[in-house]
């Protein structure tokens, strides 16, 4: 199977600090791929390079065999990469529906078509009843789902999720996991997620990459990775091993 996303030898330095160090991995079509690691491991930097916020200092990033590094965030989104923000960024004065319509308009020219598509996405994410509310008035779990709804409405081939579980209660986490699983199964949506909540990673991911000090220290199936000595030492700690 060909890789949808391939990250080849990618590096990023901030002055003296090497945030990401010659990283290599591939995400196949239809995969759920998780990137985990301690704070400061370079996960968000990696994420921002894929999303086009930063340009890598070295290496290449390719989406379906086309180079995307160096493109701007909006160009990358138009190529089919949808993203969420770790700290949610809704358009506060717009309605919930308005937020999603904006995203749906990317590949639709009529507002009526975009509204119909936004309605479908909002129904999927249990936000349809709140569509007329202002986004600024939503609770955190709702905002997290709105963030996801907005990314989905751009019709992405690859969905990038930056800690969508952070700040959610366990029941909310399970709800989010169920939604993501459904998206992955029903439409074969490829998902790359950065996550600290291991409960969600174990339930969702088919493959896991563990980063530490900007480099990959392990990659594999979730249950293999959590038994890896280096991973336990640097990130998980002995007691979390199931």
């Amino acid at each position, binding site marked *: 199977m060909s890789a949808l996303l391939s990250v080849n030898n990618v590096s990023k330095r901030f002055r003296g600090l090497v945030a990401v160090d010659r990283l290599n991995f591939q995400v196949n079509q239809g995969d759920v791929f998780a990137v985990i690691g301690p704070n400061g491991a370079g996960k968000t930097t990696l994420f921002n390079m894929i*999303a086009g916020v930063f340009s890598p200092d070295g290496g290449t990033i390719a989406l379906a065999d086309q180079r995307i590094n160096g493109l701007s965030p909006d160009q990358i989104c138009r190529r089919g990469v949808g993203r969420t923000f770790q700290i949610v*960024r809704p*358009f*506060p*004065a717009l*309605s919930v529906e308005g937020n999603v319509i*904006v995203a749906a308009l990317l590949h639709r020219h009529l507002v009526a078509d*975009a509204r119909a598509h936004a309605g479908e996405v909002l129904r999927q994410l249990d936000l349809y009843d709140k569509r007329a509310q202002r986004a600024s008035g939503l609770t955190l779990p709702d905002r997290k789902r709105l963030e996801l709804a*907005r*990314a989905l409405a751009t019709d992405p081939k690859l969905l990038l999720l930056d800690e969508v579980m952070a700040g959610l209660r366990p029941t909310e986490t399970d709800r989010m996991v169920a939604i993501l699983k459904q998206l992955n199964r029903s439409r074969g949506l490829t998902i790359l997620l950065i996550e600290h909540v291991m409960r969600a990673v174990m339930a969702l991911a088919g493959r896991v990459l563990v980063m530490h000090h900007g480099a990959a220290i392990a990659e594999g199936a979730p249950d293999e990775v959590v038994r890896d000595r280096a991973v336990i030492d640097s990130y998980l700690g002995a007691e979390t091993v199931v």
Partner: protein
Amino acid sequence: MIGRLVADVPRRAALALSVFFLVLLVVPWFANDYLLTVLILIFYFAYTGQAWNIMMGFVGQLSLGHAIYIGLGGYTAAVLFSYFGISPWLGSFAAMLLAVLCGAIIGFLAFRFRVAGVYFAILTIAFAEFARIGFDHFTYVGGSAGFFLPVSNYSQSDLWTLRGKPIMFYYLSLGMTVAAVILCHLMIGSRIGYFWQAIREDEEAARAVGIDTFRYKLLAVVISAAMTSLAGVFFAFYYNNLFPEEVFSINRSIELILAPIFGGLGTLFGPILGAFLLTGLAETLTAAWAALGVDVPGAKQVFYGICLLLVITVLPDGVWPWLYRRLGLAGRPE
């Protein structure tokens, strides 16, 4: 097109609007020339407020130099008419072209180099000041001595050359305001309008959903500039004189942002309501002082200052959104 225009306007509001519009249509039969000039001023501010609101209210880009478009529009059409006998209707196209070019340059420089917020506002002031000083020394159009359009006593109004009585300018300004409201209504409900609002709310998030923010911000500047230049054409033919010190001054730029701020940024009726309230009240005040026989220089400016202070502290969203809620209308004020 028409369907989209009225589709989401509630019936009561449509009725109120129609009545209001009819009253404005018949006003000249009952009003004297003084009242007409006040109304013309109100429409001038409602129109320019609408144009400025596209940038500030829709896309969140603060321009404090819109006088540049007023001045460029006015001078272009006035020169074409006085020197070459070209009708202001045709001159308007040249005026818009020049304003679009100027707006594109300002927008390109600002957005290409990520000049935002206060710095963007300062850049717009700087361009207006360049123009003011430039035109002061531009002797072909009179330099600092000013440029005058030919005036004679007209027994009849000539719409083609815009030479005539206040009543003609009244209908012209009314028409321009209505056209601006319709255009803004169509834009804000369209794809462009959604993208603009997204950029206003959070530019980085807007980029993340695939919006080319540079392009859409530039589009807003260019449309706003073109619309404002038409107000400049109107200004030139209504007052028949242009002085760089006056037409490009920061006062021109500031006075046209008062109505939308007072009435409600980002709304369609905010600039109109703001223009009616501010200009109407200020003129009443002036008339009252004249009747009392006292002369208070600068009273109008103090009045504007107090009004703005009150609105910013008590009703930061502007008068129209507040009124909208008080009227018990549902949804978002437009």
